[in-house]
């Protein structure tokens, strides 16, 4: 704890960038992407040769400027976008679409406007063939876990942005998959709410042992939350470097955010991202 961050930087080409850090050998890799390439119909190359290891039980952030393909990468991992080349494997099995082992939290919440919080959360279990009563029981459990007890019968339009995203999170937790994917989960809520949600997410992950992959464009968010930050460069999307922040998250949040180590790391990542933004 508190030691210098280990930064691998891909100076020329991919190979250096995807070098697996030695510390990773101690961790089990739950999900692996190999040489992912995605090209849109109009010829734009969104992702080019992305190979990445996701360590089990850890939080991985996909960070990069807008249009760098980070959301596309997450959707490839989610099985919603089929890559033109490359494979995604979960525990050494190649995926061919969305699966029960992965659950997605959406940037725009993707809640059914005509359904209550309870029905929206239980919706995740709809395909599993679980009886309605069990679905609702499970949903209630996760609603209380994300701090939404008492709002079960409310409709999405009656909720604040933060509460809507909690609903989206509860729905993803409800299916009890090992991997939780979040697409810019806190970008649609205001700054105060974002901080609260970030803290609550860390608290929640102490209870729920999950592997989390989340997309963000906020360097602070990535450093604060993630065990592993994957920095993507844009057009075409490639891995520029992988950073393991190794932040000591014990103690007061405001103290953490003022740690020299934390501040240094944010600056360092900004330094490496700057040239892709300009």
């Amino acid at each position: 704890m508190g030691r210098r961050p280990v930064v691998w930087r891909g100076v020329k080409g991919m190979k250096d960038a995807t070098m697996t850090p030695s510390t990773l050998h101690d961790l089990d890799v739950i999900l692996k992407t190999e040489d992912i390439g995605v090209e849109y119909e109009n010829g734009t190359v969104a992702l080019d040769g992305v190979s990445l290891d996701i360590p089990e039980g850890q939080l991985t952030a996909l960070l990069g400027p807008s249009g760098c393909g980070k959301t596309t990468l997450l959707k490839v991992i989610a099985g919603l976008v089929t890559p033109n080349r490359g494979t995604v494997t979960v525990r050494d099995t190649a995926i061919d679409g969305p699966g029960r082992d992965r659950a997605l939290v959406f940037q725009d919440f993707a809640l059914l406007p005509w359904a209550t919080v309870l029905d929206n959360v239980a919706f995740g279990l709809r395909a599993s063939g679980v009886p309605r009563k069990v679905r609702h029981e499970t949903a209630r459990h996760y609603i209380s876990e994300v701090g939404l007890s008492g709002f079960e019968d409310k409709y999405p339009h009656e909720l604040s942005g933060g509460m809507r995203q909690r609903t989206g999170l509860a729905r993803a937790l409800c299916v009890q998959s090992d991997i939780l994917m979040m697409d810019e989960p806190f970008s649609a809520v205001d700054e105060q709410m974002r901080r609260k949600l970030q803290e609550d997410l860390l608290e929640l992950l102490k209870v729920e042992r999950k592997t989390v992959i989340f997309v963000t464009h906020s360097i602070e968010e990535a450093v604060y939350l993630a065990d592993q930050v994957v920095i993507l460069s844009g057009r075409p999307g490639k891995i520029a470097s992988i950073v393991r922040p190794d932040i000591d998250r014990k103690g007061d949040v405001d103290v953490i955010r003022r740690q020299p180590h934390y501040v240094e790391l944010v600056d360092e990542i900004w330094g490496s991202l700057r040239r892709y933004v300009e």
Partner: protein
Amino acid sequence: MAANAVATFGANAPGEAMADTLKTHSTPTILNWQTLANSTLAWRTLSFLLVFAIWELGSLTGFSIAFPRASEVSLAIWHMLMSGELAIAYADSLPPLLTGLTITVFGGVIIGVSIGLARGAEWFLMPLLVILQTAPVSAIIPMLTYVYGISDTSKVVAIVILGLPLVALNSYKGIQATNKSLLEMSRSFLLSRADTIRLVILPSARKMIFAGLRLGVSGAFIGIVLAELLITPTGIGDLITYNRSIARYDKMFAAIVSILALAAITLSLLQWVEDRLFGVGSKE
């Protein structure tokens, strides 16, 4: 002139809207006028009386002999109800109207939903529907006589070509407008295609579908009246033409008002069905 009578029913809408806003803003009080203001029925009655009064006064100026007073028309309706004239006319008009409405409502929704869901059906049916919607269909109605003769079939076809494209196109647009993010969400939670349609696509399209149904029902009424005026001089259309030809304008207006009333009732019924189906937010 019929436009005047149309206003009787059209005028209900603003009254209703106003009553709704008042409902949300005012708390119940003992004041009588406020309770009255909250009542949709009161607003409807008021707007009806207002139009009735304007009509009555307007015709009193005697600007046209073909424009009877509202009271005369009301009286004519009463007499025609009693004499069975209206009943006989509607015995001719109602069966094709009901058949045509059924085809318009169910056929329109089914066609619209299928072209919204299946690419092939879209390529096949869309051009036809767009032509039917934009073409002056009333111009081709007389041609139906050549195909189906002077028969109920002609009436049904007239109703369907006027009503169905509106229902189908709106249903199609409703299906197309389904939030892409919700579809992606359904896929990511492994929902089957059938469940996605049932639980996500149809509920999200229902407002557009019902908007189409309202337009389609109005179109169907235009269809039956046009058919009876232009091709088969029977039923309610005949009642209008005949009374015009013998200069019984009170009875002519009575027939027009009766068909407008029927259209208004049908539309209210549709609203009732929508409220019953989706009224208090659909549960899972």
